[in-house]
């Protein structure tokens, strides 16, 4: 008899999704899919609002990456009003975004993902979590909590509000950085870099080697990738051009403002969330496991795949080691975790670079602006992927029209495929247990955030 399994909510991810698995009469997977359950309608309800207010509204799309929405939105409003932020304003924005990345990756790796590896993928759910880790390894847990808190409180102390920030403003930043604040942040950032280097070492020696087989098999699919690169082809989180790479490694670069010529969004009847795909490949959209069409992935693994190199030395050394093991582009889904830790090193190094830039304490943080009609596309790399805010304003500077492509959504198709692949590989002849269902969820967790 056929059977339906509903994994809901998908846990230890940031957001609302469920997995539905249908088994056929012999207990094998007939269908497995991921549904994205949330529809809030930001594109519509920011219409008519003063554009300069919107960076303080759209931050609520995500409480984990509010800096990303806040800054992509500010960049879009800069475009609408035709203003270029002052150099210090722009650098302070990037500093905040980069530290937010550094904080988020620690949160994800230790609080959300690590339990599957450190406690074990089939362990009892009551202990397979960060609370279990805290009990099993209190010293490491304390160190993680302290370091992550240090990063978070740097953002909080300087910007005054870091969950749903307000300090990014059209034309730049709301307040300048003082020299004593700069020194204090630099000192803390060095400590966080040390912890990032410890973490990647810990993972390479103590975690990943035990899961080599899972890495080669779980949720593995073959797709293209998207990410942002600077003029030298190095990974950049704050600004640059976009690159979409095919599974064979060939790629196309384009300006973020032209995104609509390259990306389309497909709609499935069972998910409120839309499925972005590479429309310009002219092959349509299909999540078929053998022959996917239009499918590319975003987020950490995608960014390090599309980048020719990393712009900072330690991260570059890590990338070289990674590529010597897994090639370019690397396809194994669980490698997102490895790539995340390489990006963590980059984010720390980059924040230190910015803090050493003499211009960072320039008090001229905000350019003069006038509201007017215009269009602006703001793009940054959010932890979960390329984030695009595209606004058009009327003559009074109110939002007339908005289109958003949110980082998470790029991976909805790929996550669906990874879930499908994992379910088909792991569930055989009616044998299914909690450990198997958690491993299917691990295929989703890799993409998050």
């Amino acid at each position, binding site marked *: 008899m056929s059977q339906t399994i509903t994994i809901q909510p998908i846990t230890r991810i940031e957001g609302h999704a469920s997995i539905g698995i249908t088994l056929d009469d012999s207990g094998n997977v007939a269908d497995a899919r991921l549904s994205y359950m949330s*529809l809030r309608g930001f594109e519509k309800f920011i219409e008519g609002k003063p554009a300069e207010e919107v960076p303080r509204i759209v931050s609520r799309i995500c409480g984990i990456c509010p800096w990303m929405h806040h800054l992509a939105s500010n960049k879009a409003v800069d475009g609408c009003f035709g203003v270029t932020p002052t150099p210090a304003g722009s650098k302070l924005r990037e500093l905040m975004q980069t530290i937010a990345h550094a904080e988020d990756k620690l949160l994800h790796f230790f*609080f959300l993902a690590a339990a599957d590896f450190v406690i074990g993928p089939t362990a009892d759910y*009551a202990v397979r979590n960060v609370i279990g880790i805290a009990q099993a390894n209190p010293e490491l847990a304390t160190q993680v*909590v302290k370091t992550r808190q240090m990063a978070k409180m740097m953002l909080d102390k300087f910007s005054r509000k870091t969950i749903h920030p307000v300090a990014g403003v059209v034309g730049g930043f709301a307040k300048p950085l003082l020299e004593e604040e700069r020194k204090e942040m630099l000192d803390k950032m060095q400590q966080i870099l040390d912890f990032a280097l410890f973490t990647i070492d810990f993972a390479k020696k103590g975690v990943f080697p035990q899961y080599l087989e899972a890495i080669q098999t779980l949720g593995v699919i073959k797709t293209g990738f998207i990410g942002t690169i600077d003029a030298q082809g190095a990974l950049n989180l704050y600004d640059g051009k976009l690159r979409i790479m095919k599974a064979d490694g060939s790629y196309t670069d384009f300006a973020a403002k032209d995104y609509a010529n390259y990306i389309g969004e497909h709609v499935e009847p069972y998910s409120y969330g839309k499925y972005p795909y590479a429309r310009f490949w002219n092959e349509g959209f299909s999540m078929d496991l053998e022959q996917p069409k239009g499918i590319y992935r975003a987020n950490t693994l995608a960014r390090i795949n599309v980048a020719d190199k990393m712009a900072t030395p330690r991260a570059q050394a890590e990338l070289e080691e990674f590529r010597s093991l897994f090639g370019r582009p690397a396809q194994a889904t669980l490698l997102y975790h490895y790539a995340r830790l390489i990006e963590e090193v980059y984010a720390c190094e980059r924040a230190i670079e910015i803090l050493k830039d003499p211009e960072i304490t320039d008090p001229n943080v905000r350019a003069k602006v006038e509201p007017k009609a215009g269009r602006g596309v703001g793009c940054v790399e959010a932890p979960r992927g390329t984030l695009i805010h595209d606004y058009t304003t009327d003559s009074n500077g109110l939002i007339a029209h908005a289109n958003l492509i949110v980082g998470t959504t790029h991976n909805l198709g790929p996550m669906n495929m990874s879930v499908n692949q994992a379910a088909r590989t792991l569930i055989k002849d009616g044998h299914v247990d909690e450990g198997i269902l958690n491993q299917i*969820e691990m295929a989703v967790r890799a993409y998050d955030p």
Partner: protein
Amino acid sequence: MTVKVASDWLNSCSGCEISIVDMGERLLDVLKVAQFVHLPALMDHKYFGQRGTGKHIEIPEADVGILSGGLRNQEHVEVAEAFRKSCKIIIALGTCATHGGIPTLANSFSNEEIKQRYYATETTDAPGAFPSEGLPPLLDSVMALDEKIAVDIYLPGCPPHPDHVFAALVALVEGRSPVLPDKSVCDTCPTRREGKGQLKSVQRFLKAPEYGAPGEPLDKMRCLLEQGYMCMGPVTRAGCGGDGIVPRCVSARVPCRGCYGPVRPEGNQRLDMLNALASNGIDIATLPESISMLRFSGAHGLLRPAHK
């Protein structure tokens, strides 16, 4: 003693949960006295049983149920009702849960208008029909928690300050009700007020206010409203600065937008603000729009689609 806690996020962004994590090392202390039985952000308890074969949403019995986010769809209502059944005390965590929050801006539009736009942007391949297969239907409007279930403790804020989340949890462990700020943001704002404004209009936040040298303390800066910037401080509940008191946005040299909701729980931030402006001689017709004044508290029927 150990307190059993169940927690979930509904029509939310996870900012409230991150604020809990931002308690930092205090979180480790909380974990010593709180036993979580359901917490999707961090642990793997499922609605439909661990094997995914149940037919109804099941939430384990708990002393305290913490819910963030408002109600947007039918499933949010089912989860909220299951929480009410299983938990002795329900905490509405964050302004979405207490007053609907930013997502209630959607209440100015019909669901049809929202979907029309979302599924017809320039990058979207037009679908034959809007998605619905196995999806929870949307409610007619975004609601606060207490529009569907009884709430015992209200902890507003977008997000609530970690100090208050911690204080509330400690109070519950000790078996008493938490004491939270009940003044207005203005009452706790140290900026300098001269009170002799000649303002006829308030301006949009398009340039930096005057605040002297970069490191000048906040009490040297003149009140942003008196400087002519729209600031929601007078009609917004205090607390965003936590135990440090000082309002967060104002200390970033940015005006308040009202994220803790109205000062009195049943207040109307838009009406109260328009009254405050008008009674100070400001011509409210010069405002670009006023719906944004309810951006955090549009539930309870305050924001509705415009009649056409």
